């Protein structure tokens, strides 16, 4: 746990979540200032009690959960993957109206018999009967496992991968994938087809907070909460 007399806000360092976060802060009346594009620290104009740290959005959930920051903006999917049941952090505000994404299950297009999750369940048993495992590659193993269980899909081995999931069936380390998509174009170009009912999770950017905020920054935290409550998106 870090010790600071300032409220520490973690923001995504790049990509659409960076742009959206900067706009979100501005809409809440908090003008984030940064000396250069490469600098990973910043401040809020006129707010000496706040410091800004820029991090990869995927690292922000665990940083907040480990109390390395007080509040942060990240994708809800990323947060739930790491911290859904954490007692050390919580979602302060969902659906910040940017950073839209869908976590979708896709199968090889040649699997013409598989169009729904129920088909997938049957095929998983087909694999089991041949002493094989149906393997699903994903960057979100915990979230995917939980969501698949809600759908009744249990007989699947998850393979955690960090990128290039669409190639997994061709390379051979997985049979199907669950990945974030917006339009599905990359999946289609790689001969993968999302299931008709295969959206496991729809997500936007979310504001998350630590449950270990120091008494020294409590008033700054309360002011920040008020500011984002009235944020005009």
């Amino acid at each position: 746990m870090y010790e600071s007399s300032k409220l520490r806000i973690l923001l995504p360092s790049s990509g659409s979540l960076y742009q959206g976060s900067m706009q979100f802060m501005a809409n809440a009346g908090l003008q984030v200032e940064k000396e250069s594009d490469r600098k990973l620290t910043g401040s809020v104009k006129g707010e000496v009690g706040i410091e800004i740290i820029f991090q990869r959005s995927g690292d922000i959930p665990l940083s907040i959960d480990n109390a390395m920051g007080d509040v942060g903006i990240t994708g809800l999917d990323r947060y739930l993957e790491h911290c859904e049941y954490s007692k050390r952090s919580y979602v302060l505000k969902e659906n910040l109206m940017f950073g839209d994404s869908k976590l979708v299950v896709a199968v090889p297009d040649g699997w013409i018999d598989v169009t729904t999750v129920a088909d997938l369940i049957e095929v998983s048993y087909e694999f089991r009967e041949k002493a094989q495992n149906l393997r699903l590659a994903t960057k979100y193993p915990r979230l995917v496992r939980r969501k698949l269980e809600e759908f009744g899909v249990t007989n699947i081995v998850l393979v955690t991968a960090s990128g290039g999931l669409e190639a997994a069936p061709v390379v051979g380390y997985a049979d199907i994938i669950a990945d974030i998509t917006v339009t599905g174009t990359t999946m289609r170009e790689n001969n993968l087809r999302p299931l008709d009912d295969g959206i496991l999770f729809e997500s936007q950017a979310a504001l998350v907070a630590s449950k270990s905020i120091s008494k020294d920054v409590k008033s700054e935290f309360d002011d920040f909460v008020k500011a984002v409550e009235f944020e005009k998106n």
Partner: protein
Amino acid sequence: MKDNVKNDRVERLFNFNDLGPTDINLLRSLEEKCLNSLKNSEFQLVDPPAIESSDLFFRKSLGSTSSSTYTFMDFANQQISLRPDFTASVIRLIFSDEIKSKFGFLNKTCYSGPVFRYTVANSDPIQIYQVGAEYLSDKGSDADTEVLRQAINCLSLTGISDYSLSLGHVGILRHALINEGYNSSIVELVMSNLESLEGDEGFSYLVKKANLLKLLKGTNEPQAIATFDDLGKKYASRISSDIGLREKQDILNRYYSKISNQVSEGDLLDCLNFTQNILGFSLKDFLNNQNSNLSKSSEDYGEFVIVIQNLLSEGINEENIDLDFTLTRNLAYYNGIVFDLKTRNSLILGGGGRYDDLPQRLGYVFDEGCSGFALNLSRIIELMSN
């Protein structure tokens, strides 16, 4: 905002309980009573490790409990889990060469100790103390009666006399539906959603679900395709692309079967009515129903009736037995009788049933019967403390 203020004290983990002297003494005393009783009935005490290969538990439940199972990578990069229950570990122990060579085949075993299940939405403790037994024997009513008898006896030894026994059978309803001529896709849909039939919206929910799953006629474009060969020609280029480990023939076979198995909405509703009628049976209805289609549906029916009659003749009060065919516990796992032991206000204190395929699923050669039960001693001592 009080909860958000930093607190440097190391606290007990959420949903884990400390047991003080009173509770642990009570727990040990109940554990001893149950184990002594089981040992007197020739069950042999075993104690498998609390940590096993994750595969053991995932194979047992086909992964259905994997998100509530504590799973880690160990120092040797093996995926390991804290046991979510004893059954899989005890079966593994029974079939281990070392145990078999020292003790022979242990067909009656008992156990006690903690199990670990991560719970999300409620305040149930994660570390639960169980006592229970596994019985590997012939399939049939004798073994089912023995397991039920031991479970009820152990519960009464803990001092709980006012209980209800929810009793179901996974095989009877399934066979009845198949005997009525409903096709397998509809039977699976109904069997997987029995609880939804208890609500007012059950029928419309299942019709909607069947539509979504394309089980109903008129919802899928390939209706026009008449023969298997037509399908092969139409989709030849698509199934020539990368299809991973699956075979082209399997894909075509399954697709053809999927199309030809579609039923009308009327057939589905008929099946739902038939099912709902059976679910409404009381114990008396069931015992008096021996000339109906249900009784002819399978040998399971006759065996199940014998089990109930055995329980009644052993002095179990009829009012304590609640027939419940929606009770499936876990369809992927149980294949015969299933039961829960509950308080009058439906708090589950234990349960069990028959799972004959489990040894095979864990990789052992065995084609006889396998059943067992476990009591939740943590819940029982909590109940007694209150």
